[in-house]
């Protein structure tokens, strides 16, 4: 077949993720999907804001949250967003090895974030008896932060599968949009975390 999508420096287009019709569709479709995700998280934030003081005599946000842990998590996730930018930079330069390397770093940082989040949840449950069922605040907290954590976990499985699948065959116009879609999604997850950091943790500490 004459439909070879593999790249070499001569055939490398400016934006490999949008060079094919399918790539363009994926790119745009993911943007639309993120628009829907925005409403999803907005609804969860709204619910959380309505219920964040409904502690039913259980632990409140001031009792629970510690900014040190959340600070480390924020640094991990924000840095992972930066490393995914590096990966996309190398993708556009057709440097597959470096792209894989930086995506690997991104995934590691993501795993670190998730580990801290699991530790955080376990800490609240065992040390404070603060669970999903203990109050409306508990339900809203674990649902909002948990949905975000679930998105991180999904993103991690996504990028690990992508990296493993394409490890041996390198970059081409068929998989470039896939890597790029992941990076867009990953940025979105990061932005959501910025809001969680502000609305859940910072506002939870001061009020």
């Amino acid at each position, binding site marked *: 077949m004459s439909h070879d999508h593999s790249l070499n420096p001569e055939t490398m287009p400016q934006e490999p993720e949008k060079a094919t019709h399918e790539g363009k569709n994926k790119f745009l479709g993911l943007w*639309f999907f993120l628009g*829907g995700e925005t409403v999803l998280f907005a*609804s969860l934030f709204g619910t959380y804001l309505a219920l964040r003081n*409904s*502690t039913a005599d259980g632990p409140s946000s001031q009792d629970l949250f510690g900014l040190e842990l959340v600070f480390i998590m924020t640094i991990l996730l924000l840095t992972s967003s930066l490393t995914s930018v590096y990966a996309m930079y190398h993708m556009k330069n057709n440097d597959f090895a470096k792209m894989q390397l930086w995506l690997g770093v991104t995934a590691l940082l993501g795993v670190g974030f998730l580990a801290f989040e699991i530790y955080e949840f376990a800490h609240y449950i065992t040390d404070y008896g603060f669970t999903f069922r203990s*109050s*409306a*605040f508990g339900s809203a907290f674990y649902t909002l932060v948990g949905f975000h954590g679930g998105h991180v976990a999904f993103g991690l499985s996504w990028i690990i*599968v992508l990296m493993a699948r394409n490890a041996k065959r390198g970059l081409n116009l068929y998989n470039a949009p896939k890597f790029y879609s992941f990076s867009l999604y990953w940025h979105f997850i990061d932005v959501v975390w910025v809001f969680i950091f502000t609305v859940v943790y910072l506002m939870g500490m001061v009020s």
Partner: protein
Amino acid sequence: MSSAATQKRGFGAMLWDYLTTVDHKKIGILYLIGGGFFFLLGGLEAMIIRIQLLVPENDFISAGLYNEMITMHGTTMIFLAAMPLLLGLMNVIMPLQIGARDVAFPFLNSLGFWLFFLGGILLNCSWFLGGAPDAGWTSYAPLSVQSPGHGVDFYVMGLQLSGAGTLIGGINFLVTIVTMRAPGMTYMRMPLFTWTTFITSILILFAFPALTVGLFLLMFDRMMGAAFFDVALGGNAIIWQHLFWIFGHPEVYILILPAFGVFSEILPTFSKKRLFGYTAMVFATILIAFLGFMVWAHHMFTVGLGPVANAIFAIATMAIAIPTGIKIFNWLATMWGGSIRINSAMLWALAFVPTFTIGGMTGVMLASTVADYQYHDTYFVVAHFHYVIVGGVVFGILAALHYWWPKIFGRILNEAMGKIAFWLFFIGFHLTFFVQHFLGLMGMPRRYWVFLEGQGLDTGNLVSSIGAFLMGIGGLIFLINIIYSSVKGEKASADPWDGRTLEWATASPPVHYNFKQLPLVRGLDPLWIEKMEGKGKITPAEPLDEIHMPNGSILPLIMTIGFFIASFGFIYQTDHKAWLIAIYVGMAIALGAMLTRSLKDDHGYHISKEELEREAE
């Protein structure tokens, strides 16, 4: 023709073809079949409701079963009948109208259909598994949280599945319209049905996630012991109402806008005039969609949000009457001075204009907060939303089916039967629902199982039930028409109505790649332009070359079956933890199918130039 080969294949091969298809036309047909099936179910439920309300203090069905009937009638008609039927029409027609060979994501298109269909089946499984949901189609908390049994659980999981399918469909249409319009098909040359598909998809994209969240919260409360709506633990039941209506109000525009699009196609075609005020129609559509997101609390006037909130939402609601009015006048002006041809499709369109206007008027009445305290939860509201949803959406679907049937199936629906069905349904509809305005004003509450004798409600309810029977008979005749026409119907030419838009430039039914050469669009109503300039044929935009097509796949169905199994696990794990296995197995199947999709390259296939040359027109 390739259809000769199609007919020779066995039933098994055909079934497999439909289970794995990614062709937008076949998926559209599947949507029409699925939506039609659920429409019959919902209609049956409506008949049972009207039999129960035929006479005062009737005991045709029990109070509990009545609650299940009204819940399932509403849920089925909105989510499983009206929306899928519209999505089916969009699926078949929209790509043809913009001169595309398929949608942007054929695989996701198939996944969207299966999620809808199995979601609907899941919901209806509840009838056989201890009782259907009974908290109303709006499923307000805390009633929905308290409702015993698994009925509401089926509501939650069924709607979650079918909602995900709809969301996928919406994104797919959006990308298709943005990236796959034929050369020359600028946005302001798109037919109105494509425009309304586009705007509806935006509404789906931004409205459905709110329902997703609402359903998750209800699911967590019912199945996992969360406390979102549990006041004892600080929960707040009003959150459900907000989330539901933030979704629910755009939802009614998701339903009506495509119907507006249908009428904007049919009226110009059968008036032999271009659509009056095309630009105004487009902007009115956008304006309705925009305002549609800021009026949700008009469903909650009596909740006690306060006078300021109520006033703002009342004014925003009344403002919607303006773009809608623009549309009504433009349709009238389209017909003005035209050479009007009246057939079944046109009859439905003509009946729509006054019927929908009545529904719009009662809508403005309901928008008035003070008066709404009187109307709230009475039959006045029931009458209002049936006037807009039946008079708008169902009339629109029936008009569209008559109009596009020849394009989709290659045969023309029988005119005589079409007209009989129309008149029975039309008269029956007004008999059923006009009188309900007055029943409501007299104080009859909605959703009540019985009404008492001697309160002036007897005659009205009797009339209403008689009307419902006429509608039922009309619907049956339409069904007979479909069966009759698919066997004995007149074969349709490519352009049986002397149409104006691109879908009429393809064969009836179209070949699987739609257009051998992508069409060149030279203005609004591209086919009409070519007819007026004496060619009568669309100019190709490209030389004949090989065509890239997507491969079929069984994975969407497998993925959906996985979610279907997992849903049962979620529903029953509250009874016995062994059901957790169903969750794991189901999710493993679904995620496994996703993984397979991700790992296996799918480049599609090419139809060679020689093959295309061999296929005569």
